[in-house]
């Protein structure tokens, strides 16, 4: 091995699986300056996400949110994506692996394919893979315009080599003789993100009728029916007769939570939210009078604020929920109605008449999971998902190999993304400490174009074809060519990769352009990308303007092509006018402090601190209490029953021993200033109130939550009423003869899912099951009753739940409006509750009553933290993330990340994962070594300034001052670029760069040209 | 005796003085003046003739004063600083004295904003204290304000006004002292309702020796109704009316409110007689001149001494 090869190996990671988790890991690593091989066995990256029309709980289509990242900031991220590729072997050790990769032939040359679809049309055998439509097994569909790569592939198993496609292919991209290939790559670590597969309900035809009745569809298929780009072309109709469905039923847990094969015993975790989202979307967008019903056993919306979503869906949006066991689907052949038979909660059998049934199918391990595990040398759990330990939740059995996302079992997108970031962080630790990313020096010198006449190039980019569907692009292009200053008009083919951007760079150089308009995107999402691109062509970053004809014309006026076209031209004209008057903005960069402040010394904070320290980052860890450990100090066992105390203590010891981590306990954060890369935070510690300023480049907030202190159920009045934590203390004493443990009644949802605290505690159910089993371990004869509202035991916690039932733990459901009551009677402590099956109130005298209480936001502390760091709280008091779906753990403030229960209730494993993830996110920022400070700031024309002080008074951050020369001066490093001073200035002496009055008025004038 | 003023004579003889007030009409009807003043003939020692009171144009003070004088009643000729500059003021004083007026009161005057000519120039060439000083200089030194000699200077009994209740409180006695220092012979106060505070004021003035240098006449105005009591309490700047007084008047039956007001007035006059330094009262029976004799009678102030 040559030296450079070895260096590359030490800086490279193999990511297996190109779904959202794999992409996220790859991006985080690449942003941190690593080389990534991203392999996927399918012809294109993307995984499940592209198949979904939109995602809960925001009901957004998040593809748009995630994908601009793929060419983040225009910097060439070192990600080599290898579709149609599998890993066949892995040798070596952490830091020095060799992986063998086998790639199937695509039979289409990527560089030549323009995805025109001609091959698909001519192929008699449908061997060309690019099938949109209802087939949920199809690898991808056209609705995923950002698919990487945007090219077809040919399935050789179906190909008859008739050659029609070769003839039809204009660019000559088809090569049916392409051979399979193999290669070996050297990497320092591996991340397994190979995802899961949807459960196929076909074998359960006799129960659910899938495959027998066309109007029984899977949830993914239903998603397609709703999609405007789906097979029905946006028509909301049922497959059998094209009728608009009026009554739709969702059947939950299809293929999950059942011990009868082929169904899986575990809970697939996300189908509940998935079904609710579909029901809401269908009701809101297609038929408000739609009768939507969810047939379920337990509703399990357990993510951050998902419970609120559930309550809204149920109470405000009118979706029906029926708790039952659905078992058989039949059909009334006269009416064509589907008949769903189910056993209701009181045991009676009922039938529901429906037009359409959606099976909320679960997820299972990929069919090649075992083969892949063998190749990678890692262990699987009993359900063929990758096995991981509770305290090391993204580490596999093989050092140097990590896993994330659905590869570890079914989970939702935020959880997958957090795991992805965590895995990326751990993978980094096996590599050499990262190097600096691309800097300004690597860019060509900037041309000074101020004295030149405008040579404007207008580029039209229609990534998904959305624009041309509504706008007559040809017409707009022709008209654009006549606009003043425009010397070049071109159509740009931009995909997720670099190619289109390179084309832009070339055109700027070849046509000697000095200003650029890109029509097609929102400046919000793509502004930075194109600014960086024109910079690569030697222009100032401010010499490009985006005409947002996609979002603000094509998408909103899709039904009105005439006006959409004229508005598109208006938008282009405005952009041309704006860019004509643009002046160069010079940004300056400032070094990023290679240090971090971690606030909160619980498991999440300690994990983050250690992970950063191991990457050579200097960490200051601030903890409010006198010792490290947080809430975890009170826990004795993990959810899967492993002892915990030692592990937490070890973690504390490790942090304390780590040289790179400076621990300040008994400390409060009292002030905070600066920006990403150069923060200064005031910390006050000890009774001396010793005040020090900590300088740091990034911040991780991990101050956790507090355990709810119940006032309900006689807590505090009787020493026999405990919380689960107190029960754990008792159990840890291990006294099997303790009479208090002879009979125990647990009450769930104490202090959660009510008016005061509408959220779900997320882990209280699992805790109850854990402790119930622990009691049974100590005393198998003990009687344990769990009073619950919904048992929420995702994935393998379901096993423990089942086990508990098998071992005699009684689970009795109560409803919110009929809760149990606790008191004293002649026999001592008494609890009474309604038994739904018997239909009457029962009274019971247990030895102990245990209340399952949630973690809740420490309101007072959170308010203060949010004020100091200028962040916001959610309605339930936890920290508000940048975007709970696609940016979990990122805050709206650059350089500030969050981990653990500060965000929502978290288990130890989740806290660990989040700590790692936050560290990983922080590393991507630190890897930049210097951050560019935007030059889009207010500038004073000294000779115009009347020193009137208006700007001094108006500035929200007190930046302007009247200098010794008697005019207003504004420090560009401190200016936020809001432009308030510029608007208030009575002498018009202040201009906001990028938004000068000339530019704004120029746009207005261009828009209104010829009106008068 | 410095002047021929009847008021001065009464005061110098140690009598408890009583003065009244008449506002000239907004027109040329001399009869109106005579009618109002007629009620007071023989009942008061002098009667104040207001000068464009509340910044409304009225018959000029000196002219109305002459009419009153002709009725055998001593006018107290009022002059405000709002409408004339020092030339006009001095020439008017010379004229007034020449026609037999010998008692005058120097005031700042209400702001034009309150009157019927809010657009008028607000002259204020000099202020009231400076006016007192100017008149004092004219009388005693025989000099015009500008310094030139006056041939046959006037001899005026010079009065000033004082408000014991305006803010800032602590300045009230000091300002009184200033007026006296400027040369005021007598002072008439704003109408008094808050006896407690007035007593404190007088006590302080007495302690400072001001009452020895100057005669102080306490202002009284009978309250005609509960409405008037409330108006005085809430709307008139620099005026305090204690709650219990408002309650007392407003609490009486509608038809008995006027009588209750007179009763209160009489009680207060009685009280004032006992306050050290109070040399008399100034009865401002605004548009109620016809009831003044009754009040004076019931207060035991009639008949007036002849000096």
């Amino acid at each position: 091995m040559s030296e450079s090869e070895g260096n590359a190996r030490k800086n490279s990671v193999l990511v297996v699986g190109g779904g959202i988790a794999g992409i996220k890991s790859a991006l985080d690593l690449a942003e941190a300056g690593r080389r990534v091989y991203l392999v996927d066995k399918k012809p294109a990256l993307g995984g499940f996400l592209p198949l979904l029309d939109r995602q809960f709980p925001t009901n957004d289509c998040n593809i748009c949110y995630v994908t601009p990242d793929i060419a983040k900031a225009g910097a060439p991220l070192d990600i080599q994506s290898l579709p149609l590729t599998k890993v066949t072997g892995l040798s070596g050790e952490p830091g020095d692996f060799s992986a063998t990769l086998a790639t199937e032939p695509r039979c289409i040359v990527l560089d030549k394919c323009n995805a025109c679809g001609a091959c698909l049309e001519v192929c008699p055998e449908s061997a060309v893979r690019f099938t949109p439509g209802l087939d949920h097994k199809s690898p991808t569909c056209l609705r995923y315009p950002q698919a990487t790569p945007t090219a077809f592939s040919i399935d050789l198993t179906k190909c008859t080599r008739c050659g029609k496609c070769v003839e039809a292919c204009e660019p000559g991209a088809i090569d049916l003789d392409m051979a399979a290939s193999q290669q070996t790559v050297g990497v320092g670590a591996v991340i397994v993100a190979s995802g899961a597969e949807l459960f196929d309900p076909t074998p359960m035809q006799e129960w659910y009728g899938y495959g027998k009745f066309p109007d029984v569809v899977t949830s993914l298929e239903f998603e397609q029916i709703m999609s405007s780009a789906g097979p029905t072309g946006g028509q909301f109709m049922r497959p059998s007769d094209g009728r608009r469905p009026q009554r739709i039923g969702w059947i939950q847990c299809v293929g999950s939570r059942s011990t009868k094969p082929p169904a899986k015993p575990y809970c697939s975790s996300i189908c509940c939210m998935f079904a609710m989202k579909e029901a809401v979307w269908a009701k809101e967008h297609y038929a408000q009078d739609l009768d939507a019903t969810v047939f379920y056993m337990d509703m399990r919306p357990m993510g951050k604020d998902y419970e609120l979503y559930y309550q809204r869906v149920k109470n405000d949006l009118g979706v029906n929920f029926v708790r039952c066991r659905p078992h058989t689907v039949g059909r009334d052949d006269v009416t064509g109605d589907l008949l769903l038979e189910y056993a209701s909660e009181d045991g009676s059998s009922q039938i529901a008449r429906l037009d359409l049934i959606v099976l909320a199918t679960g997820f299972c391990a990929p069919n090649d999971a075992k083969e892949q595990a063998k190749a990678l040398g890692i262990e699987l759990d009993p359900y063929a998902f990758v096995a991981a330990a509770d305290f090391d939740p993204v580490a596999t059995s093989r050092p140097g190999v990590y896993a994330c996302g659905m590869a570890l079992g079914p989970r939702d997108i935020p959880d997958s993304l957090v795991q992805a970031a965590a895995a990326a962080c751990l993978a980094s630790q096996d590599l050499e400490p990262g190097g600096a990313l691309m800097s300004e020096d690597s860019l060509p010198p900037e041309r000074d174009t101020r004295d030149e006449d405008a040579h404007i190039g207008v580029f039209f980019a229609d990534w998904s074809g959305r624009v041309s569907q509504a706008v007559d692009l040809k017409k707009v292009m022709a008209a654009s060519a006549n606009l003043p200053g425009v010397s070049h008009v071109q159509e740009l083919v931009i995909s997720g990769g670099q190619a289109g951007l390179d084309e832009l760079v070339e055109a700027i150089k070849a046509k000697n352009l000095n200003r650029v308009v890109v029509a097609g995107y929102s400046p919000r999402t793509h502004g930075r990308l194109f600014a960086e691109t024109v910079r690569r062509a030697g222009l100032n970053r401010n010499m490009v303007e985006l005409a947002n004809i996609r979002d603000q014309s094509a998408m909103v006026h899709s039904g009105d092509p005439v006006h959409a076209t004229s508005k598109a031209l208006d938008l282009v004209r405005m952009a041309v006018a704006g860019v004509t008057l643009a002046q160069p903005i010079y940004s300056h960069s400032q070094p990023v402090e290679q240090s971090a402040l971690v606030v909160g010394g619980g498991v999440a904070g300690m994990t983050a601190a250690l992970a950063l320290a191991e990457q050579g980052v200097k960490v200051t860890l601030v903890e409010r209490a006198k010792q490290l450990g947080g809430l975890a100090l009170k826990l004795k066992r993990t959810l899967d029953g492993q002892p915990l105390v030692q592990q937490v203590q070890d973690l504390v010891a490790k942090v304390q021993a780590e040289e790179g981590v400076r621990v300040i306990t008994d400390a409060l954060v009292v002030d905070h200033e600066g920006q990403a890369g150069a923060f200064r935070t005031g910390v006050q510690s000890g009774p001396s109130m010793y005040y020090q300023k900590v300088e740091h480049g990034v911040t991780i907030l991990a101050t956790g939550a507090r355990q709810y202190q119940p006032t309900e159920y006689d807590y505090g009045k009787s020493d026999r009423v405990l919380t689960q934590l107190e029960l754990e203390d008792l159990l840890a004493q291990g006294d099997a003869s303790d009479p208090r443990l002879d009979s125990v009644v647990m009450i769930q949802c104490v202090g959660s899912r009510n008016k005061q605290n509408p959220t779900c505690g997320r882990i209280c159910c699992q805790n109850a099951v854990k402790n119930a089993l622990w009691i049974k371990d100590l005393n198998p004869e003990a009687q344990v009753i769990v009073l619950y509202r919904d048992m929420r035991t995702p994935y393998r916690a379901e096993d423990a739940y089942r086990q508990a039932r098998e071992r005699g733990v009684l689970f009795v459901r109560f409803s919110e409006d009929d809760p149990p009551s606790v008191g004293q009677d002649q026999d001592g402590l008494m609890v009474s509750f309604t038994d739904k099956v018997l239909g009457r109130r029962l009274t019971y005298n247990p030895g102990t009553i245990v209340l399952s209480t949630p973690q809740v936001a420490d309101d007072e502390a959170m308010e203060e933290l949010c004020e100091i760091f200028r962040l916001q709280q959610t309605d339930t008091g936890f920290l508000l993330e940048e975007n709970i779906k696609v940016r979990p753990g990122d805050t709206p403030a650059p350089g500030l990340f969050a981990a653990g229960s500060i965000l929502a209730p978290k288990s130890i494993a989740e806290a660990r994962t989040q700590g790692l993830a936050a560290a990983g996110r922080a590393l991507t920022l630190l890897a930049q070594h210097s951050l560019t400070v935007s030059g889009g700031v207010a500038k004073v024309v000294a000779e115009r300034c009347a020193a009137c002080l208006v700007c001094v008074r108006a500035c929200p951050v007190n930046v302007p001052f009247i200098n010794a020369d008697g005019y207003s001066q504004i420090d560009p490093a401190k200016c936020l670029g809001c432009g308030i001073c510029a608007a208030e200035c009575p002498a018009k002496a202040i201009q906001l760069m990028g938004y000068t009055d000339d530019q704004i008025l120029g746009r207005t004038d261009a828009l209104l040209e010829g009106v008068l | 005796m410095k002047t021929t003023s009847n008021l001065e004579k009464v005061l110098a003889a140690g009598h408890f003085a009583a003065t009244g007030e008449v506002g000239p009409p907004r027109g040329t009807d001399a009869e109106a003046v005579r009618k109002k003043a007629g009620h007071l003939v023989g009942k008061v020692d002098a009667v104040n003739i207001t000068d464009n009171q509340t910044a409304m144009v009225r018959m000029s003070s000196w002219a109305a004063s002459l009419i009153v004088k002709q009725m055998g009643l001593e006018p107290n000729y009022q002059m405000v600083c709002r409408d004339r500059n020092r030339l006009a003021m001095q020439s008017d004083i010379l004229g007034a004295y020449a026609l037999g007026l010998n008692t005058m009161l120097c005031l700042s005057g209400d702001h034009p904003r309150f009157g019927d000519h809010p657009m008028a120039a607000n002259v204020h060439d000099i202020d009231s204290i400076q006016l007192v000083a100017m008149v004092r200089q004219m009388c005693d030194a025989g000099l015009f304000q500008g310094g030139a000699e006056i041939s046959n200077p006037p001899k005026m009994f010079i009065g000033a006004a004082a408000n014991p209740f305006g803010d800032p409180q602590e300045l009230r006695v000091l300002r009184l002292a200033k007026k006296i220092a400027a040369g005021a012979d007598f002072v008439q106060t704003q109408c008094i309702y808050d006896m407690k505070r007035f007593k404190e004021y007088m006590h302080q003035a007495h302690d400072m020796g001001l009452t020895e240098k100057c005669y102080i006449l306490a202002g009284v105005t009978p309250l005609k109704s509960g409405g008037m009591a409330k108006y005085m309490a809430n709307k008139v700047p620099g005026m305090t009316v204690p709650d219990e007084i408002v309650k007392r008047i407003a609490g009486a039956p509608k038809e008995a409110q006027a009588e209750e007001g007179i009763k209160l007035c009489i009680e207060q006059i009685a009280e004032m007689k006992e306050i050290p330094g109070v040399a008399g009262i100034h009865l401002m029976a605004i548009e109620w001149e016809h009831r003044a004799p009754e009040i004076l009678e019931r207060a035991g102030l009639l008949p007036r001494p002849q000096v």
Partner: protein
Amino acid sequence: MITAVRKPLEEIMGFAAPYSRVLLLGCNECVTVCYAGGRKEVGILASALSMAFLKEGKKLDIVEQTLERQCDPEYVEEIAQTIDQYDAVFSMACGCGVQTVAGRYKDKPVFPMVNTMFMGASERQGVWAERCAGCGECVLGRTGGICPVARCSKRIFNGPCGGSTKGKCEIDPGVDCAWQLIWDRLKALGRTDLYSEIMPAKDWRSAKDGGPRRIVREDLLS
């Protein structure tokens, strides 16, 4: 600072009616600071005026320019080259500026666009209040730094009058009683003795009552 407010548009439109091309001339001093006639206000007035006329079917050509100071002849000279292009000059300066411009360009109609108000200070952003009457003989040294001439409604030198209530002037509860302020300040300074002195009648010759005033510094003449 001299404060001013823009004249009602109706009055300005009356001035403009006979003309088709005018120079709208701002001033970068006092009137800029008090938002009456700086570059920004020039722009706003130009827009409003041209809209108001255009609406009536008349195109009024308005050229905007802002001078450093309209009360200095050298700055006013800057428009000498171009002034012939205009039918009239619309000055947004205070009365001093308008007169300087009118004095320099005697054959050109010059109109005031603002009403010049008073010499005031900025109490806070957007609020200006009168502080000096330019009386030519400053008594602030004896009144605790608060001017009875500019700030007492009755210009009383030996105040307060009887109408002072709760620190406010009798003419308006929104106006501070100057003498209350003076008294408070004298107390804070420990100089209440200054009050007991009677301030003599003022010599108003130093104010405008002595006729139009000018200041001549012999040593600076050239």
